[in-house]
């Protein structure tokens, strides 16, 4: 098993002690097949137990270990050390306040997620005796790729619009709203449109596309947001041009 010394520059910040964040350099003996998360775990276990970061599954499913690796939002469990040369710089996700070291405050994202009601709102409440809400494979495929979001927030760290305008609902929240709007079993689109078809919603997006480039699950939030724009525009035309549709 090949082993090599890897140099990591990790951003450290303890708000109770540090005036501002600073970098700390670690030299870590790493195995060839390790990812950045393994190196961080090695630091915590053997070099510096005070280092803080979030992680859980180690298999790109839980979305906990997102961080900036050499300036790019990545899942640290998905970033192989062998793909990097020289010093690897590890920072907390951009565009979020730092809670401590590599841990960010995710409250803003969680709040936005709640606002778009990312759950099924049945259009008709049928009795349990009538059975489940069924769906054809074609109806499933309509939204399936958008349902792969793991809420890792990499898209928020990559989005220049969110960096400029923190009120922007952001890629993941709008994508999840769109995912449920496309679901044949859902009837909550009108409620979600009041949140997402707004200036702070989808119209804040200028289609940079960085969200889709960094998404580790190929969800394509940029595509979802453009589809929401098209659907919202059609809503507007229907409301203003077709007789009997004005609100």
């Amino acid at each position, binding site marked *: 098993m090949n082993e090599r010394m890897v140099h990591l520059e990790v951003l450290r910040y303890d708000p109770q002690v540090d005036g501002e964040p600073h970098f700390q350099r670690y030299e870590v003996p790493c195995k060839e097949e390790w990812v950045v998360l393994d190196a961080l775990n090695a630091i915590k276990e053997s070099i510096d137990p005070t280092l803080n970061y979030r992680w859980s599954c180690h298999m790109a499913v839980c979305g906990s270990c997102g961080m900036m690796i050499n300036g790019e939002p990545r899942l640290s469990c998905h970033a192989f050390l062998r793909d990097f040369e020289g010093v690897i710089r590890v920072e907390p996700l951009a565009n979020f306040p730092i809670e401590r070291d590599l841990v960010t405050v995710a409250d803003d994202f969680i709040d936005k997620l709640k606002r778009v009601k990312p759950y099924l709102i049945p259009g008709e409440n049928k009795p349990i005796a009538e059975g489940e809400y069924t769906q054809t494979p074609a109806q499933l*495929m309509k939204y399936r790729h958008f349902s792969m979001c793991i809420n890792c927030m990499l898209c928020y760290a990559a989005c220049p619009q969110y960096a400029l305008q923190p009120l922007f609902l952001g890629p993941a929240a709008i994508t999840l709203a769109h995912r449920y709007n496309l679901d044949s079993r859902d009837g909550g689109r009108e409620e979600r449109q009041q949140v997402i078809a707004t200036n702070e919603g989808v119209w804040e997006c200028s289609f940079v*596309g960085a969200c889709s480039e960094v998404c580790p699950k190929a969800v394509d939030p*940029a595509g979802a947001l453009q589809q929401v724009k098209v659907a919202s525009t059609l809503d507007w035309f229907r409301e203003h041009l077709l007789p009997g549709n004005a609100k």
Partner: protein
Amino acid sequence: MRYMSREVTCVFIGAFALLLLCAVERLSEGQAAYESFLVAITGPWSTLGLSIVWIFAVHNAISWFNVTPKALPVQIGEGFLPGRFIVAAHYAAWILISLAVLFFAGVL
């Protein structure tokens, strides 16, 4: 960089839209006013300027056509139409509309 190059084209498209508004305004003032406007925008510098605008307009169209499959996916059964067909449809429409414009302008 791709995004910035796409977005910067709007400055040139906006400038051309203003020029078009001026043309419409002069047209509303009568034939003589419109013809003097045409004379005013004829010349090597105008040709150079309009050529630059045309290059940016083409870049704008191409960059947007290339991302249309994201905004306008076409589902067929359980699959999606490959994006290249959606892009190709836009190019086909672009060519047909351009030919129609040239035809009605008396160029063809």
